[in-house]
């Protein structure tokens, strides 16, 4: 545990000394936030909570890129080899990446909430406990998913290509950029299999105080199971040496990390309650924004 904490502190130090990291993890989400409130919410305070949920989702999902990419750079440059000489296993290297990501995400999340509440006059604080829980589990899960990609790719180029593909799916099928409620039915069902959907739905509900206990349990459990599987898979596939190439079949392990989401997707698709809830929540917020009499 002490090695993990030692490495976490090192990663945090390196991250704050990296201007690019600072830009992508703090400045970019804020630009999105301002843009979304202005363009999507048209300045209506009723929308701010919902938009906050979406922005928090992209911030937390950013952990997918975060320090996992750094791990590939470390491997390519031979830095991991030096660490391999020390009494360290793959576990602390990976866990420190997840922890550091989490500590870097927390202040950004807090800042986004404060901006929404005070600069954009968000009507309530939302369910802060639920937000904290989802941010904690979500950041760890997406970091771990990023680590799997880092483990199965051989070069930085390959990592970025695969990350971009997965990132696009996360971004556009999760409900973080386009509300799931406006998707056609078949696409909504596809979204049920996307890990990011559990985070986006959970955070949007939590930020607008429309979350239910059952929904929270489902979202957190799906993300938590995803985290456990992803961490173990990335630990098994971890490579220290730049010349140790991942066999092609190793890439299939990425799919293993999606098994929990596949199971939850099948279940939710069969019951249909989640999609109904997503539609209801969206309608409620829209009604509030349009001030339809009788809306909640």
């Amino acid at each position: 545990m002490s090695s993990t904490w030692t490495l976490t502190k090192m990663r945090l130090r390196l991250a704050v000394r990296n201007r690019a990291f600072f830009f992508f993890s703090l400045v970019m989400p804020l630009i999105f936030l301002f843009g979304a409130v202005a363009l999507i919410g048209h300045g209506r305070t009723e929308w701010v909570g919902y938009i906050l949920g979406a922005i928090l989702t992209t911030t937390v999902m950013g952990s997918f890129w975060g320090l996992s990419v750094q791990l590939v750079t470390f491997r390519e440059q031979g830095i991991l080899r030096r660490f391999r000489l020390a009494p360290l296993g793959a576990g602390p290297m990976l866990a420190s990446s997840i922890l550091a990501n989490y500590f870097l995400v927390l202040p950004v999340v807090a800042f986004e909430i404060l901006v929404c509440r005070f600069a954009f006059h968000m009507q309530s604080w939302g369910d802060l406990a639920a937000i904290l829980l989802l941010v904690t589990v979500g950041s760890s899960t997406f970091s771990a998913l990023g680590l799997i990609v880092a483990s199965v790719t051989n070069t930085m180029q390959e990592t970025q290509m695969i990350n971009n593909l997965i990132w696009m799916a996360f971004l556009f099928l999760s409900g973080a950029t386009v509300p799931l409620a406006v998707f056609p039915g078949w696409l909504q069902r596809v979204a049920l299999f996307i890990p990011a959907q559990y985070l986006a739905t959970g955070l949007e509900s939590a930020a607008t105080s429309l979350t239910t206990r059952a929904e929270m349990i489902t979202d957190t459990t799906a993300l938590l199971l995803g985290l456990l599987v992803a961490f173990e898979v990335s630990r098994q596939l971890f490579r220290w040496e730049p010349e140790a190439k991942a066999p092609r079949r190793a890439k299939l392990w990425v799919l293993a990390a999606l098994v929990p989401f596949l199971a939850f997707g099948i279940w939710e698709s069969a019951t249909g309650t989640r999609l109904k809830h997503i539609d209801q929540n969206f309608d409620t917020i829209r009604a509030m924004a349009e001030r339809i009499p009788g809306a909640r």
Partner: protein
Amino acid sequence: MADAVIQVENLKKNYGAVEAVRGLNFIVERGEVFGLLGPNGAGKTSTVEMLEGLRTPDGGIVRVCGLDPQKSGEEFKQRIGAVLQSTALPDKLRVKEAVELFAQFYHHRADTEKLLARFQLQEKQTAFYSHLSGGQKQRLALAMALVNDPEVVFLDEPTAGLDPQVRREIYDIIEELKREKKTVLLTTHYIEEAERLCDRVAIVDHGRVIALGTPRELKHSSAGTTRIEVRLAHSPVNGLLAGLDGVSDCREFEGTYVLHSSRPPQTIVSLVKQLEAENNELQSLEMFSPSLEDVFIELTGRRLRE
């Protein structure tokens, strides 16, 4: 044998069809500085990395402090220190942070302040790794190798690519380790380094030990001849140089004729006479005392840095 810290028996390593290490055997005693001397591609780095546990042998037995590097994991790593052929650290890591970071991974930790002072890194302790010179990076690598006060230190070509001044500084550090009775395994392709620092040397070529002993023993085994290197204006008549007084061996390396002579003055006199007779001209002549280079040439017919 009772005090053997490193034991290597019939060690083998292949990379595809290439046999990098072909049945290496040697023992390193406690407190000894042992050198693996050989040209690039001889299998030195593969060997040392198998001893460090970074590579898996394809055959043979390796024991370091009685432990199998492949199976003993953390316990093994607690007891060794190593400088890789090329050490890389994150660019934005500061010198002092790097030493302290690695120290924290070990149960037994050396005083990091003292280490920085010992390796003349105090003034650079807040500098980023990317801002260090080659020599400073290597001194930092050495400091990091000693953060756990290890029983065995592996140094893989620790002075390669460094300028002579820095190289001498590194020699001083290794000599200090020797005085501290640390067991050191050093790989090098510098003759001077092996002769100056090592108690015993294994000369390695094509993955095999071709000679093993103290530098003195090895030099004596080469018949104690003096090496004379000459360059001539024109190629000499076949067999002319080999037939000179006292010459026991003559080879040509890229226009330089390397003669081994047991009676150097007579050889030089007869060389000058023969060249006059042939109307040839001496462009340069250098004489060297017997060295490990001569041993290598005798055994392989090649120079170490060919």
